[in-house]
């Protein structure tokens, strides 16, 4: 069935390239069903939402054991806070995959690339598998790659906006110029936008709001999973032999060869 090779990151093999964010759901049980029904393999959870106690209110109780847990550092305002939250995630939940989120602007929730680079340096050196959430900037991406990031997570548009790939051109440049997997995160509001990201060569797509606020989150999750898969196949298909538009004649230089 699987015509495309899985994504491999830090020794893990990921077939479903649609990653799901777990915030914003009206019910944790509903979130769990989305994960199970669509065979989601990677989820992000905000450490700030993880209860210290293991009871029925604990978000982690609703994440199936075989799912890869990526804890995000939501609430961190600088590199040091992101590092502290990541260490807490390791101590309290044994989590090694960290989505570094450093946001020092509560109005737009834009990530601070400079601080994020610093956090990547520290956490990668401590052996974490790090996924920096970033504004798609080539210099920052290169620095994150050099600092040991496992992948980069550029935003498609403002978080929660559903505006899709507003930053398309810049994400394309990251895909072309870095050798890291690019996971498009934030702002993806429709499955077609997720497919578009995959068609241009993204390694995976992460969404949360679009699914959690859907009238039927289960179907929405499946739609995103399928769109991401379709987009991936389209990308691979193009690699095998993209067709350039046919050019019928040479209006500018043809005269040189006229008999």
């Amino acid at each position: 069935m699987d015509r495309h090779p899985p994504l491999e990151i830090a020794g893990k093999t990921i077939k479903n390239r649609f990653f799901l964010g777990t915030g914003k759901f009206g019910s944790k049980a509903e979130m769990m069903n989305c994960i199970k029904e669509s065979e989601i393999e990677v989820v992000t959870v905000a450490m700030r939402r993880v209860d210290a106690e293991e009871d029925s209110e604990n978000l982690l109780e609703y994440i199936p054991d075989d799912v890869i847990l990526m804890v995000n550092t939501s609430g961190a305002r600088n590199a040091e806070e992101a590092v502290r939250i990541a260490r807490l995630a390791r101590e309290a939940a044994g989590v090694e995959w960290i989505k570094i989120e450093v946001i020092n602007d509560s109005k737009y929730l834009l990530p601070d690339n400079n601080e994020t680079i610093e956090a990547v340096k520290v956490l990668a050196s401590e052996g974490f598998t790090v996924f920096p959430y970033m504004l798609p900037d080539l210099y920052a991406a290169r620095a994150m790659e050099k600092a040991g990031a496992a992948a980069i997570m550029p935003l498609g548009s403002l978080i929660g906006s559903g505006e899709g790939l507003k930053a398309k051109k810049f994400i394309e440049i990251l895909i072309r110029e870095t050798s890291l997997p690019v996971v498009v995160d934030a702002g993806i509001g429709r499955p077609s936008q997720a497919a578009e990201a995959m068609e241009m060569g993204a390694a995976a797509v992460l969404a949360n709001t679009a699914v959690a606020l859907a009238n039927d989150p289960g179907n929405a999750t499946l739609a995103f999973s399928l769109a991401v898969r379709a987009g991936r196949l389209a990308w691979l298909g193009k690699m095998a032999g993209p067709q350039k538009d046919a050019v019928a004649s040479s209006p500018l230089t043809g005269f040189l060869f006229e008999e």
Partner: protein
Amino acid sequence: MTKKEIADFLKDTDKSRLEDLAAKAGKITAAQFGKVISLYAPIYLSNYCENNCVYCGFKASGGVRRKKLTLEQIESEMKIVSGSGIRNILLLTGESRKMSPVSYLKDAVNIAKKYFSSISLEVYPLETEEYAELYRAGVDGVTVYQETYDRKRYDGLHLSGKKKDYDYRYNTPERIALAGIRTISMGVLAGLADLHKDLFSLFAHLEYMEKNYPGVEYSVSFPRLIIEPGDVTDYRKITDVDLVKCIILTRLKFPRVGINLSTREQAPLRDHALAFGVTRISAASNTSVGGYVDGVQDDPQFRVKDLRSLKEIERVLRSKGFDPVYTDWRRIDNTPV
């Protein structure tokens, strides 16, 4: 929205426009915060107060029985509240630096760390360095209301005490932000003065804070003044419609700002307000000093009108499609590197 549009909307009696804007506000709230509501509870540590605020039950000249919890009593209150499931705690005192000094607040915070994942304070305004000390001790949030932004009215309502200094209070959110505190809650006591002027001024204050301290998470509250029979102080009656409009306008103007609604409001209004803007509610609150242990609400700062248990509120939230969130911050070490 422009200033004029806001003023017009506050006066507007058009029900369908109200409904339209409520729907718009609801959409923004869902997109920004999701279908989740954060829960918190207050613990009153002391009701000693050196101010004389005409409208307040804790005023220095008032007849309220003064109480201040010992550290053992504080721990007993915390055991009860955390036992119910609450993880975000708001610690309150009256405004007496003498009776509840920073050292006392710090002791309370150190006990709270054992029971709660996030700690906020609502106490008298402090100096930046004092806020920094409390931040390092584990405080994540501070609440301070200007009460009213009408200077003249402010002066007339705050008869004596440190609170009489309007500017010192106005500059408090800035001192809190400078100290590194993560969340700041601002607001007006609706009913003290002209609502639309207070709302404009609150918005301007909030805009100033957002621009200058963008890393802080802000929230606002609109506690309504409870007017007692026989009051002669020229309070403005704030209707449910007024309060709902305040919530809607805040959401339209500040998509990312949290909106709190306490148990000072009745259950039906609280339940409905979730759908168009409110993001954080207190639950199963006792507003008396030592009230959780005593099991009574005597001499409270205000009367609790939503007396439902936490389980009952949880049930209502779920029935409305909201996930109740108890933990929305996990305290980390706040000491500078």
